[in-house]
């Protein structure tokens, strides 16, 4: 097995082989950066030790690699390496943070605040806790997708143990005001957890400055491998939690199980690359994003951007195309790998609950596309995608009686449709 990746192979195969569709679904998962893969591969072969084997060289070597990676992860978010717990991914991190804190402090405080647009695993965890007797408040969001800080302040009580608000939304890319939320939580002696699966490496994060107590991190959303994530758990003041996985006592007793050395190394390297390149990359993505957005709104009327444009990562657009049938649109742009919502729910025909929370009606929510850009997206990709989308939307509208009526000035919402 060759471990070296040659220069000509510097792009992931998905991107390199243009026979495959253009990948514009960077919020679902990101290609693993070949530089990350290269760092990981030796740990699959000659350096394969169990990092918990303290008796021999194989184990030590693996342990060193895992600890270097831990430093890299911590550094990106302004934390200490001792505060980083490896998990199997952001879903587990979110489960562990919310359940772990809630259950540890349940005799003292039993109120949790989260937001209706959180990732499904946060909402699902909160719902389970409700069944266990916790009180959960699901904050609404404003039209732009951001929470109302005043409302958060009013919702917090001396019973509030945890506030869980995501850094960046996975569907609409909006950035929540973490620093303000953190300050509010600290003042109320409430723990602040933030799901930063989509935020790490995309926006500057500092757990000290933002008063973050727990932060969920994902590998495969930041050009690292799948199957690995991390949870930042503050040490001062100390955050305590009930572990979900016991046995072996790894990760300071908070998460047992043999650490997957190659995956840990991959996550660390992904963080190091993100830290080095975030500034320039964000600028590049912003230009691509603007070109894409201008390309679409310049050529198509009746398209709507979902979520705030300013408080938003540059790698995301979420656009609704009025008078177009969503599934038809997806079918018509088959050579673009885009999604109509989050990957977890993309097989269902339900409209996105995130878009519904912004106040979109069902029709518009049904005709939206999530377009995710990233490290391997090129200008050529963007031109091609704009063309494909514009062409398909125009084609579908030409066939749509609703679009025709709209052109004739008929207010469609005023029509009373006959039951049939």
């Amino acid at each position: 097995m060759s471990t070296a990746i040659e220069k000509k192979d510097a792009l992931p195969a998905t991107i390199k082989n243009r026979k495959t569709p253009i990948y514009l679904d960077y919020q679902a998962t990101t290609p693993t950066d070949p530089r990350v893969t290269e760092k990981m591969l030796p740990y699959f072969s000659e350096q394969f030790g169990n990092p918990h084997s303290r008796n021999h060289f194989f184990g030590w070597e693996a342990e060193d690699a895992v600890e270097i990676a831990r430093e890299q992860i911590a550094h990106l978010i302004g934390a200490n390496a001792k505060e980083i717990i490896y998990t199997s991914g952001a879903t587990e991190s979110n489960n562990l943070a919310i359940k772990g804190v809630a259950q540890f402090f349940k005799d003292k405080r039993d109120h949790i605040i989260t937001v209706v647009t959180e990732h499904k695993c946060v909402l699902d965890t909160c719902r389970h806790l409700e069944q266990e007797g916790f009180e959960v408040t699901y904050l609404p969001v404003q039209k732009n997708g951001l929470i109302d800080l005043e409302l958060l302040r009013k919702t917090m009580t001396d019973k509030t143990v945890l506030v869980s608000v995501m850094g960046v939304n996975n569907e609409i890319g909006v950035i929540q005001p973490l620093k303000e939320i953190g300050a509010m939580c600290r003042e109320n002696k409430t723990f602040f957890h933030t799901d930063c699966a989509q935020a790490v490496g995309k926006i500057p994060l500092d757990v000290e400055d933002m008063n973050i107590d727990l932060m969920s991190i994902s590998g495969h959303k930041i050009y690292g491998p799948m199957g690995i994530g991390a949870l930042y758990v503050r040490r001062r003041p100390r955050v305590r939690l009930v572990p979900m996985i016991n046995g072996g006592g790894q990760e300071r007793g908070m998460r047992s199980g043999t650490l997957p050395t190659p995956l840990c190394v991959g996550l660390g390297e992904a963080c190091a690359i993100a830290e080095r390149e975030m500034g320039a990359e964000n600028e590049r993505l912003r230009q691509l994003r603007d070109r894409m957005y201008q390309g679409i709104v310049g050529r198509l009327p009746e398209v709507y951007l979902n979520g705030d444009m300013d408080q938003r990562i540059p790698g995301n657009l979420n656009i609704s195309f009025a008078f177009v049938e969503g599934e038809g649109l997806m079918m018509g742009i088959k050579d673009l790998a885009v999604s109509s919502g989050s990957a977890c729910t993309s097989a269902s025909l339900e409209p996105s609950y995130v878009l519904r929370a912004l106040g979109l009606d069902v029709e518009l929510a049904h005709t939206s596309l999530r377009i995710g850009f990233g490290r391997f997206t090129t200008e050529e990709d963007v031109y091609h995608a704009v063309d494909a989308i514009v062409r398909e939307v125009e084609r579908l509208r030409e066939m749509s009686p609703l679009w025709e009526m709209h052109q004739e000035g008929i207010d469609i919402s005023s029509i009373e449709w006959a039951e049939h």
Partner: protein
Amino acid sequence: MTIYLDHNATTPVRPEAADAVRDALAHAGNPSSVHGAGRRARKIVEDAREQVAALAGARADDVIFTSGGTEANNLALANATVDAAVFVSDIEHASVLDARPDASRIAVQADGVVDPAAVDAALKDLNDGRALVSVMLANNETGAIQPVAEIAEVAKRHGAAVHCDAVQAAGKMAVDMKALGVDMLSLSAHKIGGPQGIGALVIRPGFKISATHWGGGQERSRRAGTENVPGIAGFGVAAERALAGIEVFQELALLRDRMEAHNLKSAPEARVFARDVARLANTSCITMPGISAKTQVMSFDLEGFAVSAGSACSSGKVESSHVLKAMGADTDQLNSALRISLGWTTTANEIDQFTAAWTALYARLGAGSMAA
């Protein structure tokens, strides 16, 4: 070059499995996405599910991928409802023992085997049948194979559900979930030449299980979280290779037995744990009388052999093995027991070298040196 004899801690990844991981890493795609990239990832996951199912004699539908054996064991034990009685054997892995510290313990015999009659006795007073029994298929420290089929039969008679930790057994011996009659079975990839960070809980068809990781509907809502596609790909290939190699694997017993016989000749008072019962072909747990395991491990490491003083999870700690203690080992034996575990990379020459090193170390430091 170090000779690696700690395969029960983790195995080198098989080249074919590493290739599968690398190929999967080169393609982006979330298996839940409906576009082509997502569908390709889905296919990788589902193909591997078939391969992993075959390793356990199960149906693909009944395989739930987890982050490893520890999570699989925790998921299984979490599925005993809070009010259910939980019974675990004294020799279980820490991930079973710690998952339910309140569990009742079933003793092990001195030979390293859990007697089905002991399970029967433990379950005797069970009235309403809400119980879970967890017994491993093969022990990670001694290699002793447990009579799981008999234990399951006893448990069923009492109306209890049965979980079996087959993390060390799978790929080293034939595993057939149906024949075993268990409801849940744990597997790990990195013990069979697959990558770390991936494992599975396999369930009996129709057995209902509730998730501990909540969120997206992955794994039929039995385990939320985006699937670890490269890990799963590597697991699948490793499972296939391990299954194909099970017969050849048994030949390791010849090397192991030869080593043990030789060691016992130079140190007749040494104890080989579980020597008289059915054992995994690759595992040897042997004392070197008078020499602490720590000294042995360090000496062997300097000489280029990677061996272990117990299971890897606890090998950083000073505590002695709960498994050997449960088998009635005395303090001297507990302090001087070494685990040597062979694997798919092990050669006869390596074992010959290790045997010579073992004999030499004992002659240098042990009772053997005083006799001279």
